[in-house]
C-alpha cells in the first residue's frame, strides 16, 4: 500500500473537482476536491480509473510513484458513457448485455413540461409517452415496449436514487367524467435531474423485482461535488400557452332544430347545442339569454373562452463540499395557469442530497425531497357535468360563447343555456364549481455502506415515499342538476417503504472481473383514505361539511407487502465479453399462501467485437453485440382480492343495518403470480470515426399468467371477475441512429438523432371461455376499448352498420336508420409505430435544436366528433346539401325486404351518432413539431468580473406545429386519462402551444 496524491485537470490546466477516482476492480475510491486534488491508497500494480461526466475516462497503472497528475480530455464519445443501472450501480454502457437509454437532465429543463412523462415523448426508441388532455399537473402515460398486462399496471416502475416511488394516479377522468390530479411523476422537478436511465428489458430490471416487468425508469438527482466555496445555480423559465383551435365545423347553418331558428328563449335553450337550424342569414334571432342577435357564424369561441395560460418555474440550487462531505440543496417553485380560466397548478419542491465518506470504510448517502403541490379547479373532462369544454366545443354555430357569461343569474344560480341540466354553463363551471387538491410528499432514502475489505462491502438502505393527499370539491348551490349543491372532502395517505440489505463483492482476477452481490428487500405499501361527502347545503352558498343536510363518510385501507431475496453477478473477460447473471425470489402478500412465491432468473451477454478483432476494418470505430434473456415475476397488485366480503352502508334504513356484497369483482382464491419473459438481441455500431452510429434492438416479451379483471355481463350480478391465465406477447424493433453530418472547424456543428420503434402486440389468451375483455367505454355508450384474443392489445371496439349476406346494409324500417351489426374490433387503440427526430445545430455560442415526434398505426374513437355529428356541427351534416335533400338510404329492412327511404339529415346523423361506432373511429396518425429551443450561451469574456460563471438564455417552444393529423377536429393526443384503455377521446382541454424563455445562470 502506498499513498498516492495528485491533481486532475482539464486540458486548460484548471483543476477538475468531483472526479471519481476508483481502484479498478474494487469498490474503493475517492473524489477530487475543489481544486482537483485527490489522495488514495493503492498497491503497486493496481489500476486507477479517473472518471468524470463529459470527459474521457482514463486508467493509470500504479507504479512506484506517489504522485499521479492526470489531464482528462473532454469527450463526446458515447461509447465511454457511464449509465446508471439497477440498484443505482453506475456501469460502463459498454459492459451491458441489454438496451439502456439515458437522457441528461438538460433534456427536460429548457423546453419543459410540468409533467416529466410528457417530456419523454419522441425521445427514446421504444418508449411511447402519451400526454393527456388534462391540463397542467395532469398525468401522462409512459409505456416501454408495448403493453404486457391485460389489466395490470403497464407503466414502468419509477426509481429515484435507487428507491421506488409511488406513481399512482389517484383521480382521473373516466366514462362518467372527473378530473385528473396527476401521477407520481408530476412531483419531479426537472431542474433536480442529473440523468434519467430507461431500462427497457427484463434483464436490466430483474433486480427491481415484480414491478419492473414493464421496465424501469431510473431518475438520478443532482448531487453536490467537492468544490471551492458554494456553487449557486439559478434556472428560470417562463412560457405562455395558447389553445389551438383544431375543430373545423360547418358555418352555414345556425342554432335551431329541423331547419328552423329558435323563436322563443325556451326554444333557444332547448337547442343550445343544436346547429340544425336555418341557413345563417344575419337576421335577428333570439338566444338562450333572451336577447336577439344577428344569426351569423361564431368561429372564435375557443379563443374567446380559453385564456392564454402560463408556466413560470424558478429553481435555485446551492452545492458545495469537500473531500469528506458533499451536498446540494435546491428549492424550486413552479406555477402553472391553465388555459381554462381559474385552473392552476403549483409545485414547490425542496431537495437535499448529501454524501459523506465518514471514514475510509464508511460511506453515507442520503437524498431527501419534500414537495408541496396544489391544484386548484382541475378541469372536468369527458362527460359533460362540470366540464366547461363541452360548451366551448359544442355550442351552436351561431352562438357567441360570451353571451353565456357570467354563468349565473341574479340569485347566483347557474344560468341555463341548454335544456340538458347536466351540460354546464362553461362560465359557471369555471367560476363556481370548485375543487382543490393538495399533496404533501416526502421522498427520502438513507444508505450506509461499510467496506469490510477492499473487495467486500455491505450496504443497508431505507427508502420511503410518503404521500399525503387532500381533496376538496364542491358542486355549488345553484348548479342546474342539483341546485342545493353537494360537497366532498377526503384525504388519502399512500406510504411505501423499502428496506434493503446487500453484500457486494468486487474483484479483478487477471483477465476476469467479477462484481457480485446478494441481498434482500422488504417492501410495504399502505393506502388509507377517508372522507365525508354529502348533499344539500342547509345555508346556501356556504360550503363546509357541517352545513350539509345529508352526509356519508367513508374509510378504506389496504396494505400489501413483498419480500425478496436476490443475487447477481457481473463477469467481464478482458473488457471484451461481459456476462451478467441474476435471480430473484419474491413472496407476495396479495396471493394465497400456496401460490405466493416465485423465482425468476435472468442472463445477459455483451461482446465488444470491434475490440476483439485482430484487424478492425477502417470504417468500424466500435461494434458491440448484446443479447439477454430474463424473467420478471409479478403478482396481482391489489390486496383482499381472494375472498368475498360484505360491507355495510354508512346510512342504515330506519335503524336497520344494510349489508351488501362488498365487491363488484368476483374474487379468486387461486390467483397465481405472473411472469414476463423478455428475450432481446442488439447491435451497436459506430462508424466514420464516431460520426455515424446505429443501435438496433430486437425483442420479444411474453407475459403469462396475467391476472385479468375481466368484465362480466351485469346479469352475473358482478361487473368483473379476476382470472389468471392472460397471455400477451410484444415483439418489436428499436432503432437509434445518431449522426454528426457537420462538424466544421468554424465551430458549426450539426447533430442528428433519429429513433424509431415498432411494437407488434398480440393478446394470445385472455381466459378459459373468455375471448373478449372490456377495458373501457366511452360516455356515448357506443365506443369501447377491448382486448380480443388473437388481436393487438387495446382494440377500439363497437359497431358497424349491419349487413346481410349480400353486403346490403340492413335498415330499421320504422326509422330508416341502419341497424347495428355485431360487436366487433374496429382498430388499434395503441399506435405500433413511434418515432422521434432531433436535430441540433451549434455555432459558436448559439444552439438550435428541434424535435419532431410522430406516431402511426393507432386509431381513435372520437366522441367529440360523434357529438358534433349529432348536433349538426360536423361538416358532413351539410355536405352535398343533405340539409335540404335529406339522406336517402338504400338496402334491406330487418325482414330482408328491399328498402329505400329518404330521411332528414338531422334524424340520420343523430341516429348513427349513437349507434354506428365506426363512423367515428379515425386513424390517429400524427407528426408534430414537438419541441424547439434556440439558445445562446454568453461567453466568459462578456461575464467579465461579474460573479456569474456561466449564463445562457434560450427561446423555447413546445407543440409548435401539427405537421400531420389524420383525425378531424381534435388532436389525436386527446385522451382524457392515462389508463390502459387508450383510444377514447371526449371534451378534453384543447391542445396548447407554448412559447417562452429559459434562463440558466451559475454563480
Amino acid at each position, binding site marked *: 500500500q502506498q499513498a498516492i496524491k495528485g491533481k486532475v485537470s482539464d486540458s486548460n490546466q484548471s483543476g477538475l473537482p468531483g472526479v471519481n477516482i476508483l481502484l479498478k476492480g474494487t469498490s474503493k475510491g475517492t473524489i477530487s476536491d475543489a481544486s482537483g486534488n485527490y489522495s488514495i491508497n493503492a498497491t503497486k500494480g493496481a489500476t486507477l480509473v479517473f472518471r468524470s461526466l463529459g470527459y474521457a475516462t482514463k486508467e493509470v497503472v500504479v507504479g512506484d510513484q506517489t504522485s499521479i497528475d492526470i489531464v482528462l480530455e473532454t469527450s463526446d464519445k458515447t461509447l465511454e458513457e457511464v449509465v446508471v443501472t439497477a440498484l443505482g450501480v453506475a456501469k460502463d454502457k459498454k459492459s451491458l448485455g441489454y438496451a439502456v437509454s439515458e437522457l441528461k437532465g438538460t433534456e427536460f429543463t429548457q423546453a419543459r413540461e410540468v409533467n416529466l412523462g410528457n417530456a419523454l415523448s419522441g425521445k427514446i426508441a421504444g418508449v411511447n409517452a402519451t400526454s393527456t388532455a388534462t391540463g397542467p399537473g395532469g398525468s401522462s402515460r409512459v409505456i416501454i415496449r408495448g403493453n404486457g398486462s391485460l389489466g395490470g399496471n403497464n407503466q414502468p416502475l419509477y426509481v429515484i436514487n435507487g428507491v421506488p416511488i409511488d406513481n399512482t394516479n389517484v383521480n382521473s377522468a373516466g366514462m362518467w367524467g372527473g378530473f385528473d390530479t396527476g401521477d407520481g411523476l408530476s412531483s419531479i422537478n426537472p431542474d433536480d435531474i442529473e440523468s434519467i436511465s430507461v431500462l427497457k428489458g427484463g434483464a436490466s430490471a430483474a433486480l427491481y423485482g415484480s414491478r419492473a416487468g414493464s421496465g424501469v425508469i431510473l431518475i438520478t438527482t443532482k448531487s453536490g461535488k467537492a468544490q471551492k466555496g458554494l456553487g449557486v445555480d439559478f434556472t428560470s423559465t417562463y412560457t405562455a400557452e395558447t389553445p389551438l383551435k383544431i375543430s373545423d365545423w360547418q358555418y352555414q347553418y345556425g342554432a335551431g332544430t329541423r331547419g328552423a331558428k329558435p323563436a322563443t328563449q325556451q326554444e333557444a335553450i332547448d337547442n343550445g347545442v343544436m346547429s340544425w337550424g336555418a341557413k345563417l342569414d344575419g337576421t335577428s334571432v333570439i338566444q338562450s339569454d333572451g336577447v336577439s342577435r344577428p344569426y351569423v357564424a361564431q368561429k372564435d369561441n375557443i379563443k374567446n373562452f380559453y385564456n392564454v395560460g402560463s408556466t413560470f418555474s424558478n429553481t435555485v440550487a446551492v452545492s458545495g463540499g469537500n473531500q469528506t462531505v458533499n451536498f446540494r440543496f435546491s428549492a424550486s417553485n413552479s406555477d402553472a395557469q391553465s388555459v381554462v380560466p381559474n385552473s392552476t397548478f403549483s409545485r414547490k419542491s425542496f431537495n437535499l442530497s448529501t454524501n459523506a465518506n465518514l471514514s475510509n470504510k464508511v460511506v453515507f448517502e442520503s437524498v431527501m425531497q419534500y414537495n408541496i403541490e396544489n391544484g386548484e379547479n382541475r378541469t372536468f373532462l369527458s362527460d359533460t357535468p362540470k366540464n366547461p369544454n363541452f360548451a366551448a366545443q359544442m355550442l351552436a354555430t351561431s352562438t357567441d360563447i360570451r353571451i353565456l357569461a357570467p354563468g349565473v343569474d341574479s340569485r347566483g344560480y347557474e344560468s341555463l343555456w341548454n335544456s340538458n341540466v347536466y351540460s354546464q354553463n362553461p362560465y359557471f363551471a369555471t367560476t363556481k364549481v370548485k375543487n382543490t387538491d393538495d399533496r404533501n410528499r416526502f421522498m427520502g432514502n438513507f444508505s450506509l455502506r461499510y467496506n469490510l475489505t477492499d473487495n467486500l462491502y455491505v450496504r443497508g438502505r431505507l427508502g420511503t415515499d410518503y404521500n399525503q393527499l387532500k381533496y376538496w370539491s364542491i358542486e355549488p348551490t345553484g348548479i342546474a342538476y342539483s341546485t342545493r349543491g353537494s360537497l366532498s372532502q377526503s384525504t388519502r395517505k399512500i406510504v411505501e417503504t423499502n428496506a434493503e440489505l446487500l453484500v457486494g463483492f468486487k474483484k479483478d482476477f487477471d483477465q476476469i472481473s467479477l462484481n457480485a452481490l446478494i441481498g434482500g428487500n422488504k417492501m410495504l405499501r399502505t393506502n388509507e383514505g377517508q372522507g365525508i361527502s354529502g348533499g344539500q347545503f342547509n345555508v346556501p352558498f356556504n360550503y363546509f361539511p357541517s352545513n350539509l343536510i345529508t352526509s356519508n363518510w367513508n374509510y378504506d385501507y389496504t396494505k400489501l407487502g413483498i419480500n425478496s431475496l436476490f443475487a447477481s453477478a457481473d463477469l467481464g473477460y478482458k473488457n471484451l465479453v461481459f456476462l451478467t447473471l441474476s435471480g430473484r425470489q419474491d413472496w407476495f402478500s396479495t396471493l394465497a399462501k400456496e401460490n405466493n412465491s416465485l423465482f425468476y432468473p435472468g442472463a445477459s451477454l455483451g461482446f465488444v467485437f470491434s475490440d476483439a478483432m485482430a484487424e478492425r476494418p477502417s470504417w468500424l470505430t466500435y461494434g458491440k453485440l448484446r443479447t439477454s434473456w430474463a424473467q420478471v415475476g409479478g403478482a396481482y397488485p391489489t390486496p383482499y382480492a381472494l375472498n368475498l366480503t360484505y360491507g355495510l352502508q354508512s346510512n342504515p334504513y330506519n335503524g336497520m343495518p344494510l*349489508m351488501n356484497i362488498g365487491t363488484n369483482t368476483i374474487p379468486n382464491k387461486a390467483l397465481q403470480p405472473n411472469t414476463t419473459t423478455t428475450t432481446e438481441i442488439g447491435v451497436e455500431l459506430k462508424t466514420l470515426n464516431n460520426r455515424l452510429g446505429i443501435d438496433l434492438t430486437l425483442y420479444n416479451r411474453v407475459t403469462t399468467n396475467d391476472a385479468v379483471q375481466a368484465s362480466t355481463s351485469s346479469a352475473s350480478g358482478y361487473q368483473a371477475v379476476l382470472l389468471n391465465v392472460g397471455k400477451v406477447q410484444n415483439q418489436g424493433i428499436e432503432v437509434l441512429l445518431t449522426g454528426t453530418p457537420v462538424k466544421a472547424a468554424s465551430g458549426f456543428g450539426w447533430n442528428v438523432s433519429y429513433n424509431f420503434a415498432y411494437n407488434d402486440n398480440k393478446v394470445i389468451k385472455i381466459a378459459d371461455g373468455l375471448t373478449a375483455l372490456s377495458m373501457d367505454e366511452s360516455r356515448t355508450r357506443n365506443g369501447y376499448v377491448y382486448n380480443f384474443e388473437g388481436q393487438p392489445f387495446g382494440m377500439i371496439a363497437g359497431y358497424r352498420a349491419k349487413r346481410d349476406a349480400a353486403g346490403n346494409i340492413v335498415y330499421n324500417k320504422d326509422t330508416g336508420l341502419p341497424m347495428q351489426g355485431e360487436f366487433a374490433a374496429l382498430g388499434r387503440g395503441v399506435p405500433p409505430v413511434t418515432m422521434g427526430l432531433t436535430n441540433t445545430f451549434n455555432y459558436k455560442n448559439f444552439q438550435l435544436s428541434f424535435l419532431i415526434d410522430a406516431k402511426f398505426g393507432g386509431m381513435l374513437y372520437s366522441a367529440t366528433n360523434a357529438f358534433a355529428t349529432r348536433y349538426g356541427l360536423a361538416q358532413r351534416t351539410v355536405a352535398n346539401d343533405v340539409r335540404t335533400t335529406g339522406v336517402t338510404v338504400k338496402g334491406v329492412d330487418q325482414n330482408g325486404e328491399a328498402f329505400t327511404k329518404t330521411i332528414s339529415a338531422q334524424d340520420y346523423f343523430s341516429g348513427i351518432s349513437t349507434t354506428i361506432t365506426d363512423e367515428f373511429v379515425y386513424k390517429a396518425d400524427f407528426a408534430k413539431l414537438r419541441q424547439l429551443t434556440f439558445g445562446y450561451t454568453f461567453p466568459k469574456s462578456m461575464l467579465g468580473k461579474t460573479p456569474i460563471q456561466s449564463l445562457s438564455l434560450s427561446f423555447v417552444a413546445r407543440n409548435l406545429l401539427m405537421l400531420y393529423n389524420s383525425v378531424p377536429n381534435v388532436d389525436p393526443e386527446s385522451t382524457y386519462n392515462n389508463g390502459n384503455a387508450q383510444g377514447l377521446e371526449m371534451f378534453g382541454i384543447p391542445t396548447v402551444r407554448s412559447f417562452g424563455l429559459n434562463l440558466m445562470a451559475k454563480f
Partner: protein
Amino acid sequence: CDDGFVDMNTNPNALTSPVLENVFTYNIVKTAGTGYENHRANLIYCGAIVQHFASLNTYWSGDKYLSNVEYYSAYFDTGYQNQVKEIEQIISLTKGDNNLVNKYNIARIWRAYIYSRMTDLYGDVPYSQAGQGYLNNVYSPKYDKQSAIYADLLNELDQASTSLAAGKDAYGTADPIYASDITKWKRFANSLMLRLGMRLTKVDAASAQTYVKKAIAGGVMQSNDDIAKLKHYDTNDNNRNLDGNTLKTQEYDAANLKGKANSKLSKTFVDFLQKSADPRLPYIATLWQGNADASTFATSSDPAVQKGLPNGYDNTTIKTLIPGWNDNSITTYSEANLNYVASNTAPTMFQTYAEVEYLLAEAALRGWGDGQAAAHYNKGVAAAIDMFSLYGANIPASATTAYLAKNPFTTVSTEKQMEQIATQYWVVNFLNSYEAFANWRRTGYPVLTPTNYAGNDTGGTIPRRLKYPQSEASKNAAQYNAAIAQQGPDLFTTRMWWDKQ
C-alpha cells in the same frame, strides 16, 4: 419469508360472513330502487309510455319513443347488480337448512318479484344462470325464454308459499315489508301469483286460469294492511322514496324552476282523473306552487285547475297544438304532488291490495273466480282511495261512495268492464309504472293514443318492451345474439312472449 402475509391480506374493514337479516333489508331497499333506474326506467320510459307523465324535453325518451341507451339499459344493469346479486346469495346461504326454511322461502318469493319485473320489461332475460357470478362462476349467463321464466316463477311462488312454516323464525324486524308475518308473506306470494298468472291471458289462457285459481285458493291480500310496501323516511337516500325524490330534485325543483319543470303529468292521466271526479286527484296532482309551498294546497291542488300536458311534443312543436303557447305556458301544467303521492316519505308500493281486487274482478269476469266482478271492482276502488292515508292524505269514506256512485261498475259489456278494471289498475299503479306498462300491454287498456315525434325509434307506435343494454351486446355477445335469434330484433317494437298480438 411470508410471515404475517395471510393477516396482511385480510381486509380489516369488511366482513367475511354476512348477517342474513341485514342483507335481506338491503335487498328490499334496493328493490324499491335507486334514483338511477327509478328516474330512467320507471319514470322516463315506463311512466311516459303509459302516459302518466309527459314532457317537452327530449331526454324524456318514453314520452317520444326516442332511443336512449342510458335510460333503457338502466333497469337491467341495476336490477341484476343491486337486486339479483344479493337475493341469489341469500338463497344459496339458506337453501337446504331446515332452520332457515322461512328465510329461504321468503327470499324465493322476493326473487320471483325481482325477476318478474325484469322479464316484463325486456322479455327473454338471464334467469336460470343470472346472479351466479360468484356462486357458480357463470360470467356470461344465457337468456332464458320468457315462457320458461314464467313457468318457473309461478312454480317458485307456489312452492315457496306452501313451504312457509308458521311459528318458525324468519328475518324478524329486519323484514321491512311484513316484519316476518308468515301469513302476510303467503298472501303476498299468492297475490303475486295472481298478477303473474293473469299476465298469461293472451298467450296461454289455460296456464293463466290454473295459476289464477291456485292463487285465489291459496289466499290473497285481504286489506290494505296486506300491501307489500316499503316505508320511507326523509333522512337520506337509503330511506327516501327515490321516485318522489327524483321528481323533486331532478324534474320539478319548484323553488328554482317555478313551474318551468322538465316534465309534467300527462294530459291523458289528468283528464281521466278530472272526468271521473277522482278524489285522489288533489293528492296526485298539484300546480308547481303546491310543490314549492305545501300550505297553498287548497288553491294549487284544486282539481279544477289541474291540467295535463299532451305527450309527444317539444317546446317548438307544442305551439302547433296549443295556440298562443309561450315560454311561461308550461308553468300552468300539473306536477305530481310532492307532499303526498310523490313525497320523500311516500311508501314504495310493490303490490297493493287494490290491484289484487282488480285482478279478482277480472278473474270473475273470465269465470275463473267467484263471479263477483262488481264487488271486487268496488272493493278495489275503495281500497285504492283509502290507501291514500298511507301518503298522508285524509280522503273521507264519503268521497269513495260518491266516486263509486259517479263511476259505477259498467254493465255495457264485458269488454267495457275489462277496460274499466284495467283503467283503474292503471290509476292505482301511478308511480309503479313498471306494472302499469305491463298491464297496459296485456289488456290494451286504457286506450292510449300513440305519438309520432320526429326521429322516434318506433315509427310512431307505442313501445312493447325496452331494449337490452349495449353492454350485453359487447360483454355477453354470444348469449345476447342467441336471445335476439329466439325473441326477435332488439327493438322497442318487438313483442315479448306473453304480449302476443
